Each structure stands twice: as C-alpha cells, then as structure tokens.
C-alpha cells in the first residue's frame, strides 16, 4: 500500500495572464474593478470627480459584482445587505436621472479591504473577513479551484474522503 495516499502540490509562480476580463476594452477613462477575481471595466465613469470613493451605476454594480439594489437592500443570490437608513445618502446619490452607488462605502460596510491605483483607475476589492476567517472556528479547509499544468481545473473538495497533504512550493 502506498504510504502517501494523496498529495496536492501547489506551485506558485509566474504564468500566462489568466485574469478573466468581462469587458475587453481597457478604457483609460473608465475605472476597472477587480472583484472576486474578475476584472470589469465599467461602462460609465463617476461624475463625482472629487470623491475618493468609487461610485458606479446600478448596472455596472451588477455587471462587476453580481449585486443588485432591491427594496430590502443590496442583494446577491440569497444574501441581502440592508443599507443603514441614516446614512443612505453615503451609498446612493442621484445625478440627473442616473442613480449612483458608492461601492467603496459598501465595501467598508462589508469590511472588505480595498486597494486603488489612481493612475490607471484600478480598484480592487477583497473578500469579506467572515469568508476569510470562518474556517478558524469550523476548521473546514477552505475550498479552492486551480488548474493543473494542462489547464484542467481541480478543486480541493474533489478529494473529500481522502487525506490531503497540501504543500505549496514556488518556482522562485
């Protein structure tokens, strides 16, 4: 019997550009959002030039994040986040007939870390801490899906029922 039942080795190194891009046009004037691994160049640029926050149209909000504004809050699938009534104007502003949503304020509400490059107008929003830290109490190994050298995707959860020795290395 083989002593080591299964080993998954992750090699972290340079590779080809694999960022999925929802919008092919890299418009220098329109922000690009990287949200949960997907990069999206927005269709509309914010009219609030002096704001340090990222304002997006409701359509861009859905395109870039999957969230939609509903009467009960900002929702995606089964999860809805009510917007605080007293500070609703921090999240929503109307200019003319267009309603704008403050994605930076929403990220703060969800405790998402964010980073911005002003020169290229790139905005990155990280995972919610609850998603990041939940495994600390459950001890459930967080799932992930990555390609092998042929490009075939594999998930950690594919190996439920077997011991997994997860080892990370790098080409550097």
């Amino acid at each position, binding site marked *: 019997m083989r*002593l*080591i039942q*299964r*080993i*998954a*080795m*992750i*090699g*972290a*190194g*340079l*590779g*080809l*550009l*694999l*960022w999925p891009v929802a919008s092919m046009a*890299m418009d220098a004037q329109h922000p690009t959002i*990287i949200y949960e*691994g997907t990069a999206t160049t927005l269709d509309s640029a914010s009219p609030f030039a002096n704001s340090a926050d990222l304002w997006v149209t409701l359509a861009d909000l859905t395109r870039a994040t999957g969230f939609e504004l509903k009467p009960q809050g900002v929702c995606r699938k089964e999860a809805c986040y009510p917007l605080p009534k007293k500070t609703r104007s921090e999240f929503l502003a109307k200019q003319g007939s267009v309603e704008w949503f403050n994605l930076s304020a929403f990220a703060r509400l969800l405790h998402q*870390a*964010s*980073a*911005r*490059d002003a*020169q*290229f107008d790139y905005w*990155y*929003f*990280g*995972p919610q*801490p609850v998603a*990041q830290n939940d*495994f*600390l*109490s459950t*001890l*459930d*190994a*967080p799932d*992930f899906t*990555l*390609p*092998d*050298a042929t*490009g075939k995707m*594999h998930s*950690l*959860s594919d190996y*439920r*029922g077997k*011991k*997994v*020795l*997860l*080892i*990370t*290395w*790098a*080409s*550097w």
Partner: protein
Amino acid sequence: MRDAGPWIAKANPEYLALIDQEHIVTKTYGLVNVPTGVWINEQGKIVRPPEVAYVDERYRNLTGIDPKPYLNAIRDWVANGDMSIYVMSEDKLRAKLTPASPDRLMADAEFTLAEYMYHQGHGQEAIAHFKESQRLAPDNWNYKRQAYLFSTNPDRDYGTDFAKEVQKLNGKPYYAPVDLPPAPAGANPQPAKQEP
C-alpha cells in the same frame, strides 16, 4: 504556467500538481513562505496548520531543517489517521490559526492589485503596491519573493533583495519551528491499537 510548468513536467510527480498564479492559497490559508504544508483529513477538516514542510534533504545546509521528523509524522498520519499523535487537537489548532488582521487583508489587496497591474504590463507602476503589501505584511516572504522575481532589479526597485532580507534576520529562524510531539521511542509508524 510558464514558470511552474517546466518544473512539474520535469518532476513528473505521482501526486497532483496545481498552478496558483494569483496566490489564492496563500491568501486563503494565510501562508507566508514555501514550502508550507497543511494536513486535511477525509472529512475536509484541517488537522495540522500551515507549517514548514520539507520532506527531503534539500536546502538543509541553509535551513538546518532535518526533514525526517515531519516525514515520519506524515507516514504516521497515513497509517493511523485521526488517531495519529501528530494530528493536532482542535483547541490547539484554533490557537495556532490566527484571524486575518486588517493589515493582512490590506496587504492581500495591495499584492493582488499589484499582480494584476504587472500582468497588464504595468510592472513599474505596480512596484508601489508590492511595496505597500510588504510594509503591511513584513513577515510574508511569499509577497517579497514574488515581487523581487517580477523585478529586473530588486535592489533598484525595492532597495533590497532576497539574500539581503534573509541576512536581516540576523540569526532569527527563517521558518517557525514545526510543533511536533516527540516520536515514541523506537518509533516507526504503526497502526493504532484497536479498542477491544
């Protein structure tokens, strides 16, 4: 794929080798160095936390790490499963698995943005974000080493390089020591005794 692929092809391992260009596992599991190992049991539970995971003699002259204890622990786990003395208790695991701090999450964000910019052809402009990730997570060697590799001149771009950073440790260990219980006397991995 370009850099990790040839190594995988040359090794032609029996185990599954995956490529994590975006450092997803680093960020999800809070890893800071390589090689790092995590043990996951058949129910998908973590039974040993991230720790240095040499399983052979490479770099022993540099690290001083004897791989035999960790390798024997793995073999014991394979033989004895959750009964292995090397499977960590839940209480101890929760003490060792630290929550992602705001600084660490910000470091992850800056590093991810920097990598995105690098792959978009803005490597020079990405340096500021790589530097910020290193400032926020100074113990994360993965973030340093990946950025240095992307640079054509780490001394110029970061004022340092990997060798200099290791020298700054000034005798402190590069890896946190592995917290293994002592092997039983005359130990070779044996199946746990069955309850009558």
